[in-house]
């Protein structure tokens, strides 16, 4: 395997090939967004077993020593969704569209936690593992992907609850539900790309985490997750400008109402997903080794 000069991915995979690696100040600077994405995927592939081991380590760490054991890893992600669904059942929070309120609110919250995790996880992992990466040479994208595995697991557990609620409340999906999967994938690209970019910026300017923490913490109230956003007035603008609101609402409508009810803003943000992922991947790929050791 001969790696490009702009890359420092090494042939550590024990495949018997002899790679030539060049390290210089300009390393990776000429990488295009696609090169960067391919480079990150190659790093994850090279350390794929580390992704599995790190995911299992963190997964087990969540319940080691507890009485309920692995059930905590299932119960804890369900708790907020369960509470919101209960509030909706008790009609304490207003209903969304034509969809049964508990289904709508649990669907919204599932996507919200998943998307917020896509932003926050790269930021926190890059900060906490930056020093360790300097010692082990494991690329930072590897623990981030391992963390993404945890997000996926929690998202899946919540999704099962949403499906269960939909079945119980006889909320039948429409034909455009299939598109919902694509919109979620695009949302993941959008927010993961944003997370990768902010993860790098956060090392250079630690204020980033201080700002994103509260925004994403309280943003749930301004993203149409628990309460529908107002249709008129100054806050109505959030329908279009808040990507969380646009993608979550659009995905829910695709799943339960049909494609004709989806707003234009949803399509715009959805199309921006791959673009932001490419931008984030390029920034992360180029800057990752340059932030090493800066705490």
């Amino acid at each position, binding site marked *: 395997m001969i790696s490009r000069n702009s890359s420092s991915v090494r042939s550590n995979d024990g495949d018997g090939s002899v790679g030539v690696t*060049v*390290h210089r100040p*300009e390393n990776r*600077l000429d990488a295009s967004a696609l090169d960067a994405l391919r480079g990150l995927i190659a790093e994850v592939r090279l350390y794929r077993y580390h992704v599995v*081991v*790190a995911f299992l*380590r963190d997964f087990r760490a969540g319940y080691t020593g507890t009485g309920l054991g692995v059930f905590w890893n299932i119960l804890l992600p369900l708790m907020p969704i369960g509470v919101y669904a209960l509030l909706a059942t008790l009609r304490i929070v207003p209903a969304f569209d034509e969809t049964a309120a508990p289904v709508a609110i649990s669907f919204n919250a599932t996507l919200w936690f998943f998307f917020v995790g896509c932003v926050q996880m790269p930021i926190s992992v890059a900060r906490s593992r930056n020093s*360790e990466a300097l010692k082990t040479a494991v690329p930072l994208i590897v623990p981030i992907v391992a963390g993404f595995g945890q997000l996926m697991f929690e998202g899946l557990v919540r999704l099962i609850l949403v499906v269960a609620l939909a079945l119980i409340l006889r909320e039948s999906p429409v034909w455009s539900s299939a598109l919902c999967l694509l919109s979620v994938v695009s949302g993941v690209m959008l927010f993961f790309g944003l997370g990768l970019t902010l993860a790098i910026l956060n090392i250079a300017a630690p204020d980033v985490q201080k700002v994103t923490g509260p925004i994403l913490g309280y943003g749930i109230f301004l993203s149409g997750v628990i309460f529908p956003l107002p249709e008129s007035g100054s806050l109505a603008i959030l329908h279009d400008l808040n990507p969380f609101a646009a993608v979550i609402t659009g995905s829910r409508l695709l799943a339960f109402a049909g494609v004709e009810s989806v707003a234009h803003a949803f399509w715009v943000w959805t199309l921006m997903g791959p673009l932001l992922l490419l931008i984030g991947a390029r920034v992360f790929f180029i800057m990752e080794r340059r932030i090493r050791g800066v705490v």
Partner: protein
Amino acid sequence: MLFDDLVLDVNGLGKVYSRRVENERARLRSAFWRVLFRMTPRAITPEDQGDFWALKDISFKLRRGDALGIIGLNGSGKTSLLRILAGQVVPDAGQMTLAGKSAAMIDLTAGFNPIQSARDNIYLRGAALGWSRTQIEDRFDDIVEFSELEDAIEAPVASFSSGMVMRLAFSIMVIADPDLLFIDEVLAVGDFRFRQKCLGRLRELRRQSSFVMVSHSMGDIKAFCSEVLVLHKGRMVFKGAPDEAVEIYQSLEFGEPESDRKRIESILTPQFENSDTITDVRHFWCDESGHPIDSVTAGETLFFKLSFRSKIDIRRLVIGVPVWTEKGEYVTGFSTELGAESYSVASDTSVSFCLEVPHVAFNEGVYVSNIGIMDGLEFLYRRANVALRVKPRHPLTWGLVTLAHEWRRVE
């Protein structure tokens, strides 16, 4: 082919560090925005206050089977260089090209999870080295056998002694078969026997791998390295044979001639004088007639005189004269403790002592010494003597001393 047997080619490598984290962050912010908007980040030069070249103009080549030692004082840039070579940080100047698989033993226990068992940590660390599950399983038994931790393999690493953790970590690294191994001060693993085992394993590895090794152990450097690079304040001040490199390193460690004096001073201190106990102290090297001297020819008899007035009753007088070379090597000591007689001195008494050293065995050189006067364990006086120059009797001498000896032919 460029890398026929060349495994590492380092050319003009440099790294800028900042003493102020804010400078580092400002540089990163600038690079971030430029990368985001597809501009080339500015070249890094230490023009800002607090920035400096931690490494500059480092160039060398390493061939298959070679072992390069890197030595230097603390802060000379050894670990930074190793981290760049291991690809963990990007250089700010120059270029480095390496062929084949590399592994870095920079922080052996990094990535270990203390609450997990040694077995789990082998998988964890192996995975962090980019090994697949199959590769780890293939090497698992060898790792456990090498670490000699068969009985503790299921125990959490938190319950291990630091020596056991290092043994486990070292075993994982040496079972890998890299083309190039970067080693940072990690050979002091476990007890003496295990350390010998590690050194033996490294010797075996050298048949197929090349090493770059940072160490403060000059013994390891001389034993393992075919060539040694001396770093000083981020610059390469020497590259060549281990013996010569170690000498240069030691001259850096002990300082320039100007600071030689300081080193000798530090050996001879603390100076101490308690005038409430003894006064009028005189001491000097002298000849047989008692005239002070500052030089003697090897093989002659040397004398030392001491006189003082005691204001107290000294019940157990101990006089000692330790002797060092001017490089600070401790040569010997002359003490009344070794004599058959013990001395005591009554209050308000003046006393004199004479030390006789027949056939001075010291080889040519300058020797520094102290005089210590004690009452039992309590120091009453401690001062430096005049430095003594020993002139050679024979042109050929070896080492520090020439002991009386005779060769005889035995039929």
